[in-house]
């Protein structure tokens, strides 16, 4: 197991390096840089532009260096916890993003737990009652969840949550508590607000997971060991618990790799609609105003979150399934 973990960790390094290069290329790609749009803004406002100051700023931020050196500075800075400087907010990036990253992680984990909690029983029901009305109805519901753009769902939920439950519109905490230090009351308020984005983001992933779980379980239920066990008189409930469900568990853990990018994508757009204090709205703003280091830090973080999630799911899977941790090195 230790050997497998180490190998998996080492394999992450080149992946992250390539991702960082990609991210850097993307944030560098728009023509011009923040200072140029800043100058244009000043000129539009009729103010004089101090050439020397601009040159100084450019030098200070390393914007006059060749690209590969800029990349190197950015990368080595990140390894030391320095994510660069946000031009728009006039603050180091690391000071802005802390809370937002935490909330994004919390939101993603809550969404995945929700997805599991909903998809697991429904998937089992659909597979054991194949072609029944319940199966058809739930499948249709799942499909509709898959097809509805979740930003619109967010908007509608937002409205009805306010009309029916009196929950304040937008945000993750009650407006009165935004600046308050963390306390039980604030945590309760977060939980009361969290369920809307969790449900909205979860719908699409839940539908997909139900379909995959159903297909997997159906395959498993056809296998001979299940028939044998049934022939020997094992009651259906125990049979399910003892054999096919355990196989399906493996798949369930492995599916985080599929689920997580989807959850994070959904979280971004839903966060913009609900104006959640997560990465979404700020990333959108940073991309629009070419605040490159802020955008870069967010993109890098989201990629890291995905890669780590996949790593965790791989490790869990290896712990569950000896075939993977023992056979992994020998080639397939």
């Amino acid at each position, binding site marked *: 197991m230790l050997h497998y973990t180490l190998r998996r960790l080492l394999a992450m390094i080149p992946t992250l390096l390539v991702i960082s290069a990609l991210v850097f290329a993307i944030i560098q790609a728009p023509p011009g840089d923040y200072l140029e749009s800043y100058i244009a803004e000043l000129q539009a406002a009729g103010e004089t532009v101090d050439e020397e100051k601009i040159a100084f700023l450019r030098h200070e931020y390393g914007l006059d260096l060749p690209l590969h050196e800029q990349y190197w500075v950015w990368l080595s800075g990140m390894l030391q916890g320095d994510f660069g400087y946000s031009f728009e907010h006039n603050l180091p990036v690391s000071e802005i993003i802390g809370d937002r990253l935490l909330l994004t992680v919390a939101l993603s984990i809550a969404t995945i737990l929700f997805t599991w909690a909903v998809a697991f029983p429904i998937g089992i029901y659909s597979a054991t009652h194949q072609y029944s009305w319940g199966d058809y109805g739930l499948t249709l519901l799942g499909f509709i969840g898959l*097809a509805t753009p979740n930003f619109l769902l967010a*908007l*509608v939920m937002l409205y009805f949550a306010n009309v029916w439950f009196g929950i304040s519109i937008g945000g993750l905490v009650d407006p009165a508590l935004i600046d308050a230090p963390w306390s039980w009351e604030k945590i309760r308020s977060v939980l009361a607000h969290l369920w809307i984005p969790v449900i909205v983001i979860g719908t699409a992933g839940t539908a997909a997971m139900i379909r995959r779980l159903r297909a997997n379980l159906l395959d498993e239920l056809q296998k001979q060991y299940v028939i044998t066990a049934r022939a020997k008189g094992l009651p259906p409930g125990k049979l399910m618990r003892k054999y096919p469900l355990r196989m399906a568990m493996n798949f369930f853990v492995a599916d985080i790799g599929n689920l997580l*990018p989807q959850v994070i994508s959904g979280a*971004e757009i839903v966060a913009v609609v609900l104006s959640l204090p997560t990465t979404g709205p700020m*990333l*959108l703003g940073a991309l629009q105003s*070419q605040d490159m280091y802020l*955008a870069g830090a967010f*993109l890098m973080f989201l990629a890291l979150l995905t890669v780590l999630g996949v790593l965790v799911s791989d490790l869990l899977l290896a712990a569950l399934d000896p075939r993977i941790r023992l056979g992994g090195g020998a080639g397939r």
Partner: protein
Amino acid sequence: MSARIPGRGEHVVSTAPFDPATVEALTPEQERYYLASQWRLMWWKLRRHKLAVFSGALLALMYLIVVFAEFFAPYELQTRNTDYIYTPPQALHLFHEGEFIGPFVYGLDYRLDMEILKREYPENRGQIHRLRFFCGGDPYRMWGLWEMDLHLVCPALTDDGRKAPMFLLGTDRLGRDLLSRIIYGARISLTIGLVGIAISFFFGILFGGLAGFYGGWVDAGVQRMIEIIRSFPELPLWMALSAILPINWSPLWVFFGITVILAMLDWTGLARAVRSKLLALREEDYCSAAQLMGAGPGRVIVRHLLPGFASHLIASASLSIPTMILGETALSFLGLGLRPPVTSWGVLLNEAQNINVVALYPWLMLPVVPVIVVILAFNFFGDGLRDAADPYK
């Protein structure tokens, strides 16, 4: 099969000359089945999948509407009816006071609710505006080529020659008919999926083909690349990439830019399918035969291997069109995708972005209905195609 049980002492082996044709005679039905081409088999199998056939027909109808959008839309894309701003959808009636009249709408009165400053349009039961069919309405340039004014339905004309209101799905903040805008928006939203899938098909076959055919380090490299692209959450990357598009590009260029961006992340699934199929197929005898006869890799892949799993590819492609349509909608909704005057469903939904719309003008969210219908239809149709793609199973 007409076995005669031989009696004692009789010769066991039949002396009649053996004619294999009599034994393996096929009924005409079997013969038809065995001789059918792969595509014909697929069609037979798809036909049994009722939901898929229905979805396919629905999609065909939608694309027909897309092609003749100008004719099907009752108004022009930008026609403004300044007297009817934020009109709610009008009900279509057939009977007036128990008497059959044919499809018509009642006239509208106008009143401003002074308390919340909301425009209200109560129905005026006294006015009956019968719809006209195949009629002259707003003039337009058909496909930008020639002038026409023929529409499928037009609003009735009142006695003084003015157009009566007919807004079956309501109007927006400029008094533009939502139904017409949805029909025009379909043109962009539905083609973006097709153009995108064409691009991602190209990349998928190129990279998947290279990986599957050459194997070794090429395969390893492509596999890593796919893994990295897939490990990135789609939407933030789309957002970042579309932020790169210069603002001063013309709408047409932005359209292609967005399509390419959507396709750039989408080819990975196809490439994997191509690769795994190629890995299995390249060991087949007919492939070695082609190579021995001097065919180059390009020819072997395109001429000999691709036809073997083209049907499978088309099926998986039709399953990834919905992702692109949703992607465009999401990007345009965020204001990073297409921008007015280009009209797509995402652009229309962008106008429904704020909470007032949900509370006061909920019909502005109607463009989401065709989005859902199209995505469901593509999913069902793709599922059916995928099942049918392997007719020998």
